[in-house]
């Protein structure tokens, strides 16, 4: 396994990239504005692209460069662009009636990070030198998944729900880049196109909702109509 002979410099590069992407998830969690979510998501995707490129460089997987370019292009440019277009068409610029206030969700997110760390610590059975990189990657992967779930649960604007889904997916992607860097290229490409289709479908759904229901907030969509 590649992580068994990672040197301190590589370990610190990986951990700083991963930690900053975790921080950007908190930016999404703590902000009111939909635009900020998209910017944070774009920067996070660029960081993950840099992470794949550096793993590819240090571990000697040339196909990871392709993945890095695809990630930066699709997640870092195309998806944010599509989301910005959707937001531009909406009349909602910010989360008005969040179930949890930003400060409470930050504190809850901090607790979730601790929970993720406890799980990751239990899952780690390796005893080699760079075992902390494994725990770090697992912790950040799990906490980004939890935070994505949290965003899905407590936000009711449609755009922030799709961003919660994307963050969740970014977390899995980040963890897989560090933990199992040799994943077949095809799977990665399939995931990327999956996301693209999700966002495209979502754009159509939002259009439909705006035309027929006049709102995209799930709070307003709780009445059954025949």
């Amino acid at each position: 396994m590649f992580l068994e002979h990672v040197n301190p410099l590589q370990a610190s590069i990986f951990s700083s990239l991963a930690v900053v992407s975790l921080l950007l998830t908190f930016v999404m969690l703590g902000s009111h504005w939909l635009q900020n979510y998209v910017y944070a998501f774009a920067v996070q995707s660029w960081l993950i692209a840099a992470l794949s490129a550096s793993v590819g460089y240090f571990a000697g997987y040339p196909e990871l460069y392709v993945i890095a370019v695809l990630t930066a292009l699709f997640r870092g440019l195309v998806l944010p662009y599509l989301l910005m277009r959707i937001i531009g068409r909406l009349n909602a610029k910010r989360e008005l009636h969040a179930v949890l206030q930003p400060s409470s969700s930050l504190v809850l997110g901090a607790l979730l990070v601790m929970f993720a760390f406890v799980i990751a610590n239990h899952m780690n059975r390796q005893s080699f030198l760079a075992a902390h990189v494994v725990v770090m990657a697992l912790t950040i992967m799990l906490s980004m998944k939890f935070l994505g779930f949290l965003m899905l649960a407590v936000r009711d604007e449609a755009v922030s729900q799709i961003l919660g889904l994307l963050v969740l997916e970014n977390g899995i992607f980040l963890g897989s880049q560090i933990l199992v860097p040799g994943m077949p290229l095809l799977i990665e490409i399939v995931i990327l196109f999956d996301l693209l289709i999700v966002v495209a479908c979502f754009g159509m759904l939002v259009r439909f909702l705006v035309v027929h229901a006049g709102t995209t907030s799930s709070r307003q969509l709780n009445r059954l109509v025949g």
Partner: protein
Amino acid sequence: MILSNLVLQICQVLCVVLLAPLLQGFILKAEERIQRSRGPNILQPYRDLWKLFHKQAVVPESASWIYMIAPIVAFTAMLIVPILIPVLTDRPLPQSDMGDMLGGGMVLTLGSFAIILAGLDSGNVYGGIGSSRAVMLAILAEPTLILVLVGISLLAKAMLPFVVNHLLLGSPSTYWSPAHLFLILAFFVLLLVETDRLPIHSPTHLEIYMIDEARILEYSGPLLALLKWASMMKQFILYTIFCNVFLLPWGMSQIGTPFGEFGSVVALLVKFLLVALVVIVVETVQSRLRFYRYQEPLATGFLFAVLAIVSSQLM
């Protein structure tokens, strides 16, 4: 010539007492300069103190002994804390083993506790408002402070500021570790809150959102001067802890020659200049938060502290 440890310790305290108004003056001046107005002279806080010490003290009829004793307690607390922390020399000096970081935090809090009591004591409406706001802020800031202390002691395996200073000087990998960087961010949030800066405290004093000014509204003359001086010293002490223990552990006198002491005073002023500039930028770009959003910066600080503790476990 090497100065004796006792003299060095007295120098540390004197440095805090004498230079605290200068820091306040610099921040006030620089804030105005950024907004392209002239601003008060950098020495204005000294003149204010001088003026207040030569005025008559007017005591409200409803005030009890707490009113008289609170400024003295606050000022004395701020005289004790510099003994416990590395201000000029990076090694423990006489009596610096009186308390560790928690002890220093307790003495700092004792000072603000005395002022809170004084605000309630005279029965003035604004005093009560100021005290209740200050207590709410203290309650919100306390978890972050405790977690920062826990984080730094997990990093250094000790509760002494001198050990932390030596650790950060000695190992760059610890200095640049995510745990330490998160601790710096968390402490910076605390620094903004505790030194009466935006986004919580209003830059204009004597208005309806005031917090610290409201508590001391009833004071006048020498007692008011003591309180103002104490709050400037608190700011200076917190800047010292932030610079010498967290952010910039360099440039401190090790042997204790007069020249070295002078050099470390200069280094301290340069470090404060850097931190104060960052604080001023925050104050300029940030508007005051609504009362019900006070918890947001503090929740951010709490988050940074938790992340620091988690990442210190990963090292």
